[in-house]
């Protein structure tokens, strides 16, 4: 049609346009910003404070009433690590069972000094109290140490829970962001028939999928930088490896989880369906991939299954870099596993994707 206002394209690329549209939509959604950027920080601060490593303060010991009770109590109280009280045995057992005491000491009247320790072998502080009290009482009874010992307490950044947690939170953010950010957005557009409207234009379909993945990357990097910066400022968490390696892991992880998000959303027609699928996909990783605690706590038998989850190699590689300063060259198995997840999920998603 000859029309003066008809122009050829002004070089504005559809892919750039699609990414810009996703970014604008995201930035205009305050709730999304909260969940993506603020929530991981709050979680980090809460967990970092709750599980900060403290030296064991004082052991609470109950000494069972008896002829020797007074002297035992005196020995223990002389040591700043104990707070001892004399009570009946039943009362002592109750205090131990309910966590108000760490140790119960009984000293039957005998010729030689003899002690009975009641403690809870499943409670770290109870075991510690037993061993420390034994040490003190043995020395008081005249034991001499055979070797001389110097204690040099170490509390360096790197070994604390928060140091373990930060890479876990980074990975969790990548997983949640990839699945929710991609999966939810796509199903929402499918419901609104916007996907169908897009395929009714000459825009190549691959541009649309690429725009979803690229916009994920654009959201992810500031999110990760923010978590790392806050971890450093508030908890002194440092990166023992190279930042380039961390960045590469973040990029690879965000591709992988965007691919999984794409696959999860490839056919779903309702928000309920895709939410259910996403939760089913994420739950095993929340629990089994080592976000909050090491996967080594799980039985040996299920370890091989945990390694197959995509978040597990990501977290393990992230920790190897950040905590141990390893280079990517030594993390090839983890990287290969992540890349395999990314490639396979993309391929399947492209194949199954429902546009209408």
């Amino acid at each position: 049609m000859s029309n003066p206002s008809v122009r050829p394209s002004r070089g504005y690329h559809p892919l750039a346009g699609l990414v810009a549209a996703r970014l604008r939509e995201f930035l205009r959604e305050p709730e999304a910003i909260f969940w993506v950027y603020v929530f991981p920080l709050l979680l980090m601060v809460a967990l970092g404070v709750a599980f900060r490593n403290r030296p064991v303060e004082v052991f609470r010991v109950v000494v069972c009433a008896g002829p020797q009770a007074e002297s035992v109590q005196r020995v223990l109280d002389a040591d700043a690590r104990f707070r001892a009280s004399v009570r009946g045995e039943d009362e002592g057992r109750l205090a131990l069972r309910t966590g108000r005491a760490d140790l119960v000491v009984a000293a039957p009247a005998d010729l030689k000094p003899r002690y009975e320790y009641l403690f809870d072998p499943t409670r770290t502080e109870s075991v510690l109290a037993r061993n420390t009290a034994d040490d003190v009482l043995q020395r008081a009874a005249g034991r001499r140490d055979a070797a001389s010992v110097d204690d040099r307490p170490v509390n360096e950044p790197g070994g604390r829970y928060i140091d373990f947690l930060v890479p876990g939170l980074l990975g969790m953010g990548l997983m949640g962001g990839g699945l929710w950010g991609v999966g939810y957005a796509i199903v929402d557009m499918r419901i609104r028939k916007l996907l169908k409207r897009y395929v009714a234009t000459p825009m190549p379909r691959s541009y649309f999928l690429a725009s979803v993945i690229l916009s994920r990357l654009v959201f992810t990097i500031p999110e990760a930088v923010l978590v790392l910066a806050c971890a450093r400022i508030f908890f002194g968490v440092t990166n023992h490896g190279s930042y380039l390696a961390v960045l590469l892991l973040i990029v690879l992880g965000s591709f992988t989880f965007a691919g999984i998000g794409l696959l999860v959303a490839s056919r779903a027609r309702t928000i309920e369906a895709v939410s259910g699928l996403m939760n089913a996909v994420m739950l095993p990783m929340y629990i089994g991939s080592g976000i909050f605690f090491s996967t080594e706590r799980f039985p040996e038998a299920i370890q091989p299954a945990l390694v197959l989850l995509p978040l597990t190699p990501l977290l393990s590689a992230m920790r190897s870099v950040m905590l141990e300063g390893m280079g990517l060259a030594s993390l090839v198995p983890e990287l290969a596993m992540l890349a395999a997840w990314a490639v396979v999920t993309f391929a399947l998603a492209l194949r199954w994707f429902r546009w209408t």
Partner: protein
Amino acid sequence: MSLAIRCAGLTKTYDGKPPVEAVRGIDLEVAEGECFGVLGPNGAGKTTTIEILEGLLEPTAGEVEVLSLRWRDRPDAIRQRIGISLQETRFSEKLTVRETLTLFRSFYRRGLEPDEAIARVSLEEKADAWIKKLSGGQKQRLAVAAALVGDPDLLFLDEPTTGLDPHSRRQLWEILSECRRQGRTTVLTTHYMDEAERLCDRVAIIDHGRIIAEGPPRELIARLGGRHVVEFSLQSPEAADLPAHAWQALPGVTGCRFENGTIRLSVAEPHVVLPALLAWLAERGWKLASLVTRHASLDDVFVALTGRQFEPKEETEP
């Protein structure tokens, strides 16, 4: 005159239990520059038909040529030259009108400036408003602008005015009339005969996946025997026993149907029929319970063609 659309033997059966035969053999030819209307009740197969023409659905059988091209051979070439408004699209709520149209413009090799498309649908005042803030009619105009922004040779509009208030409908009619004046080929589906009458050069009425009538709207209504309808009911029960030909004997009455105690006369000129009717009733001492006169509608054409009532109102459309 060359054809913008040619389709023959189009059928579409949706898989399912039981399978739905949505389209059962449709042949259509739309000439270049023509505004063609597809009319029919809900579930008639309008959307299915238009989406096959738009290349969004595969037909089960049949041939489609759009702008003398086939979807199989040149999908991109066709897409560059057509503009589409789906029956229901919700654009991203937090983008502005201009941002949305700029995005859609970037998909086409050539087309209108986004601001030009905005002007075509008179949305200048809302150019920088979020889509969330638009009324139903404004959203529908945006959908038309998104269809126009690639400056298409062929425009497809699926129920562009359904669910809109009368004022918004009229605004859209003006926009579409303007497109028609520019000679842009348009295919639109609609529920409303008055809309088709106003906008379309030709219409096809479809029912149960088949075309039951095709031609210029005036001609279809003329086939009814009259462009107006006089609808009334009486307080006197014995009137119900009167056969149709008794009513048709009144001067100017060309058709008569009964329904639930209502008598419906097709008439060419109400000002001739009404005095005669009232005199006739007075002669017998029959009193009116109600009386309405209106333009003949799709309802009437449809009832005349199928013997069925033109099914539920548009609110029930999903």
